[in-house]
């Protein structure tokens, strides 16, 4: 509905969801029935291993190792939390969007993020982790969300930069998850990636308009790119050498590519887009390496990443306080809804009894 209608846009793919990865995941062939009937062994672990080895999906009713379940719950919950916390920095601009068309696109986007949160909490539920329990873990700080949302949206251009860079990086991470070994997660990711792809284009479009605008608008766009570039690169997680869960997740078909691989792909895809926008990126070491055909970039400041992750970022406390307040302010509403539902159920049962008598 809110398609991208800027006529001057580059026609080539703008993000990883536009390079066929989602379609490839959708074309995945389900050979579970055949595999499960062939497996003579009753051993549950062997059956699980056989499904993974054949790149088949694990479904909620299947037996799975406890560590696999735990890893998935942690990852899906963190992803769900990121979607709903991400509503805040963007929601921050709904009442101030500079045109009615942009306002409509932004409301639809924030609404999509709420929807993504819902799909993901439902996927976690299939693993036995209820939404209430996960929200409690978010509110108490036991579970995390993507640390990118601990940065503030200070100007309208930040809404563009979030779409272009943050959604763009998220898509790069998520397209491989459309082929994740856990069925409900993979299916949720297919829906999510399609919508994220719109978000990324819309973000690019915001910056496109600014970069063709007045000198003040250009400066606004450049400032946003300067502030969001490095945090976006950090979204792929620590370098491979320090990544703690990666190897096992790869073996289980949850993760398909390493952090550094995905980061490199993102840089390769995004630098030419920055050039199209007429924006520079805040990295003096950024240069094209003919031999490897990659854009080489400078050292990431991992001390900043760790600092923000551990709670010392500009918005950590604000994001959680906002989230908790919404939850606490809404407690009486949720209680009323369940009380009313219980009364209604009782009334229906009574009416039925009377009808029988």
């Amino acid at each position, binding site marked *: 509905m809110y398609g991208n209608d800027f006529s001057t846009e580059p026609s080539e793919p703008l993000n990883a969801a536009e390079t066929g990865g989602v379609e490839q995941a959708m074309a995945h062939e389900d050979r579970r029935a055949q595999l499960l009937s062939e497996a003579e062994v009753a051993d549950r672990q062997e059956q699980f291993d056989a499904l993974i080895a054949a790149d088949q999906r694990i479904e909620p009713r299947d037996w799975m190792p406890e560590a696999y379940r735990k890893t998935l719950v942690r990852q899906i919950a963190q992803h769900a939390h990121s979607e709903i916390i991400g*509503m805040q920095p963007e929601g921050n601009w709904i009442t*101030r969007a500079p045109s009615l068309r942009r306002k409509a696109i932004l409301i639809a986007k924030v609404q999509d993020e709420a929807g993504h949160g819902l799909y993901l909490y439902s996927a976690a539920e299939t693993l036995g982790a209820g939404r209430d329990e996960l929200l409690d873990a978010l509110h108490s700080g036991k579970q995390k969300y993507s640390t990118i949302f601990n940065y503030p949206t200070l100007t*309208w251009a930040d809404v563009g930069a979030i779409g272009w860079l943050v959604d763009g990086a998220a898509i790069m991470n998520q397209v491989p998850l459309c082929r994740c070994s856990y069925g409900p997660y993979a299916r949720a990711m297919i829906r999510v990636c399609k919508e994220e792809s719109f978000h990324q284009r819309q973000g690019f479009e915001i910056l496109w308009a600014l970069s063709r605008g007045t000198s003040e608008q250009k400066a606004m766009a450049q400032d946003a790119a300067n502030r969001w570039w490095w945090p976006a690169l950090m979204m792929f997680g620590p370098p491979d050498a320090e990544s703690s869960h990666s190897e096992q997740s790869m073996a289980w078909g949850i993760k398909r590519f390493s952090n550094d691989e995905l980061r490199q792909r993102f840089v390769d895809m995004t630098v030419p887009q920055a050039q199209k926008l007429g924006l520079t990126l805040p990295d003096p070491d950024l240069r094209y390496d003919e031999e490897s055909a990659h854009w080489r970039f400078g050292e990431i400041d991992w001390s900043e990443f760790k600092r923000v992750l551990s709670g010392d970022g500009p918005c950590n406390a604000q994001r959680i306080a906002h989230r908790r307040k919404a939850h606490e302010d809404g407690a009486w509403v949720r209680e*009323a809804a369940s009380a009313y539902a219980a009364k209604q159920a009782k009334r229906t049962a009574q009416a039925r009894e009377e009808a029988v008598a």
Partner: protein
Amino acid sequence: MSPEAAVTTQVRPQALARYCLALGDDALILTQRLGEWMSRAPQIEEDMALGNIALDLLGQARALLTYAGEVEATYTGEPARSEDDLAFFRDEREFRCVHLVEQPRGDFAFSIARQLVFSTYQYALYSRLSRLATSPDPTLAGIAAKAVKEVDYHRDHAEQWTLRLGDGTQESHRRMQAGLDEVWPYVDELFTDTEDAAELASAGVVPLPSSLREECERRWTAVIEQATLQVPEPTRRSRGGREGIHSEHLGYVLAEMQHIPRSYPGSTW
């Protein structure tokens, strides 16, 4: 859209333009208030539902403001003001919304009470507007025909929540009644027969606002009573929004909404 078609001999285009602005401003300012809920709702489903209502209202506002600008151009001789010109570059006194939509979002019960009143009113208005089959103004009838389907959902959403909150817990009952009490002083204003509306109504272009009242009261009274609540009888009544006399809240809504385009005049976004 052909504004010429609308400008019939009986109706002054000035009246039609102001009428469309009034309806558009109602929808736009309530969009702002609903937008404040996103990320603050009691549950994620409500972030989505309130966002959805905001999005529908914004769509209505855009169509109505665009049309108001076109009609206005037929008598000013100036190029038509766009939806954005009208939204971002009019001052408080030029806005024509009712006080109801200007009020701060309050708690969830207040927002639901406001939505119950506003969606019931909008449903009655748009269904009558869209049924004016031989409408001298097909554009307005077309906008109404699309909107009535959206508003039907908004009204249902508000009614369901009124029932849940009214007949839920003691606290929710108390809050929902308080929400209704707070909203009711703003009900009258919706049904005021302004000069513009009366002129358009006598030409059969729009329904007379006061003629919508009975249908609305019947509908919300039934819901409120079923929710074990009472229809308030306020002593205070808001007035003047359609003439640009607003509550103090509107200035802040506009300051927030208009700040960016006004800080960078002549820019496109």
